[in-house]
């Protein structure tokens, strides 16, 4: 850490990780309900726990993205943050919004639109917070007079995230049209501009952790982001197949979304190339674990498992089955959760003034492997359940409820592996809150910070 103002990242990480922990509670509750019977049905029915589970994911990831950006931008632009106070105010409003949303869902205050359940007033608050955030970043970059490709891609992704949230503010009487534009936000976030954010963070971490030449990495970053949009923008069509759109979306969606794995393959190769050049030389080996893990797991979860059901002839049978959460869980974990945990693990020694190898605790190490195994197991449980459901319900024509009763053993696996994953999350939180230390005031250092990387 070279700039005082980078410390605002710390409270952002605190909020993000607390919400991550809460997300696990609602995830486990939702999974247990699949086993039934549900003693909590009157108090917290499935629709509430599921909406809270997914909304917490979006909110905590965005909180962590913001924290990561506040850490990264001053370092890349070589200047203090424009306004630390604005960053704190922003965090306060954002957290209040998140908490209000969660409490609201419990009391059935919801817009009832999948992943965009936030009631309209809260949606407006989200837009305002995003504008404050982008203003702060923009003024910082302007003051520094230096915009690197890495931070440009990151900030570009965050700006587009705000822009693409705008369609969510409109309401359409025609349900088909409303679903059509819902995907402009949801799909173009997670399979478009969030990949820019992942790419930007990945590039930053690889430059710092491997010391590979920035010019080379940033050149390939452009290629990866270009591939993201070639496949991602027209790939939106894979959500359109069956909702009442013209037929031409089927071949378009099939072809372009089949290209989406190239992006993740690109990122995995990118990480492999960087690490092959330098090896595991950087002392913050846990940050390396999470970073490389993100590149590999996103290739599996977002790339391969997405490809598995994206072709129209396959999707016709799997659409609306448990195949979707199979892909969704591993994709979000690989692409976004792991890169964020990598960023937090990388930033912590600087924020707390400890040595670079201080993150190599057994808690962090076990957290990594428990999360990996838990997520792998959950993905397998969803896959087994989804394939069985597709076969029994969609192909043989067995009723939905009868089919679900035949999936009980997979739901049991889901709960067991979910508990493993949650144990991994708990260890990460334990490590962050009790072992990593508290942020310190650092003396201003001149010039590049040699301790932060083997070679910059």
């Amino acid at each position: 850490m070279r700039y005082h103002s980078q410390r605002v990242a710390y409270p952002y990480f605190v909020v993000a990780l607390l919400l991550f922990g809460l997300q696990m509670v609602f995830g486990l509750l939702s999974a247990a309900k699949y086993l039934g019977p549900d003693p909590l049905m009157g108090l917290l029915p499935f629709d509430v726990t599921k909406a809270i589970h997914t909304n917490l994911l979006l909110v905590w990831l965005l909180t962590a993205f913001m924290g990561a950006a506040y850490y990264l931008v001053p370092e890349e632009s070589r200047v203090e943050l424009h306004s630390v106070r604005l960053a704190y105010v922003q965090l306060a409003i954002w957290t209040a919004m998140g908490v209000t949303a969660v409490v609201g869902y419990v009391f059935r205050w919801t817009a009832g639109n999948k992943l965009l359940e936030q009631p309209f007033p809260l949606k407006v608050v989200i837009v305002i917070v995003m504008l404050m955030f982008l203003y702060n970043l923009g003024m910082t970059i302007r003051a520094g007079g230096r915009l690197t490709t890495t931070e440009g891609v990151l900030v570009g992704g965050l700006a587009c995230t705000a822009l693409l949230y705008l369609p969510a503010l409109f309401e359409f009487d025609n349900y088909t049209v409303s679903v059509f534009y819902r995907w402009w936000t949801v799909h173009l976030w997670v399979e478009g501009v969030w990949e820019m954010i992942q790419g930007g963070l990945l590039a930053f971490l690889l430059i710092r952790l491997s010391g590979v030449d920035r010019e080379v990495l940033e050149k390939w970053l452009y290629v990866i982001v270009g591939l993201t949009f070639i496949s991602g923008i027209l790939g939106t069509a894979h959500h359109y197949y069956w909702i009442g759109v013209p037929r031409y979306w089927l071949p378009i969606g099939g072809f372009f979304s089949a290209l989406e794995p190239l992006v993740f393959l690109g990122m995995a190769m990118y990480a492999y190339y960087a690490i092959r050049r330098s090896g595991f030389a950087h002392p913050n080996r846990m940050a390396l674990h999470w970073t490389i893990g993100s590149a590999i797991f996103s290739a599996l979860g977002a790339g391969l498992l997405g490809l598995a059901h994206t072709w129209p002839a396959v999707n016709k049978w799997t659409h609306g089955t448990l195949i979707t959460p199979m892909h969704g869980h591993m994709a979000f974990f690989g692409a976004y959760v792991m890169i964020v945990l990598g960023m937090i693990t990388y930033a912590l020694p600087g924020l707390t003034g400890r040595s670079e190898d201080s993150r190599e605790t057994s808690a962090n190490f076990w957290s990594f492997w428990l999360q990996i195994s838990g997520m792998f197991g959950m993905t397998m449980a969803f896959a087994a359940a989804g394939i069985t459901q597709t076969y029994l319900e969609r192909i043989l024509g067995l009723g939905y409820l009868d089919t679900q009763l035949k999936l009980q053993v997979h739901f049991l696996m889901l709960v067991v592996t979910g508990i493993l994953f949650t144990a991994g999350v708990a260890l990460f939180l334990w490590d962050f809150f009790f072992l990593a230390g508290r942020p310190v005031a650092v003396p201003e250092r001149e010039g590049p910070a040699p301790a932060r990387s083997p070679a910059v």
Partner: protein
Amino acid sequence: MTKRAARLFFFISTLVSALIFTILTIDSHRQFPKLTNAAAIDARVIAGKHVWHRENCTNCHTLLGEGAYYAPDLTKITAQRGAPYLREFLKDPSRFYSEARDGRLMPTLKLTDQEIDDVIAFLGWVSRVDTQGWPPRPILVKGSAVPGVATALGVPPEAAASQDPVELGRVVYNATPPGCAACHSVAPGVNIVGPTLAGIPATAAARIASPDYRGKARDAAGYIRESIVEPNAHVLVGPTYAAGGRSLMPGDYGETLKAEQIDQIVAYLLTLR
């Protein structure tokens, strides 16, 4: 490749993709009115859509295959179950399903009669959206389409060539609409919502002979036909069959089915001895 070339690749590919996407979006808007039957979106459908969102339905159910996977898909539910059944169901789901038997139960939403009618109107509109042939086979809430697995839409090639009324009747029976198979199984002892139709010729003959019989039919074929076009002619007592002395079966098959389709269904059901 230089960094400059990579940047150019990024900007051009993004721009071209966004441009194509925009053009296709504009064209889709041109076609939405016809594909979604937009003229039928009246005040009740819109009010029903609000009920759908307000009650957070999409976080258990899927609609058009989108939503959560904890409860059945509702895209074609109005074609499968009909409004009389859905009205009673929404008033009290626990009358039709139990956690002990089915593993899941929908909470009672305490909707007003108006709200129930609105949400049924909304779901009825959704069921007529042109979904490009999805789902390829009916997605049933409960029970089984086996035996007699048939395609949902149109007549399978082998049956199209057939002129056998029994075979054609089997196809109509398993298609949605009319969705007979969604409520009536043809397996003995399996009562999904309506009674099983296994052994219906003998059952029908016994019912006509019974002193309780209120209809006008004189033989099994006549009884089956009467039950299809006029479900209230003779109402059976059963946990999920009727409410307030009225059958929960849709009463409009006399209008929505062609005369020869009814003949075919009757011919098919007469074979279930």
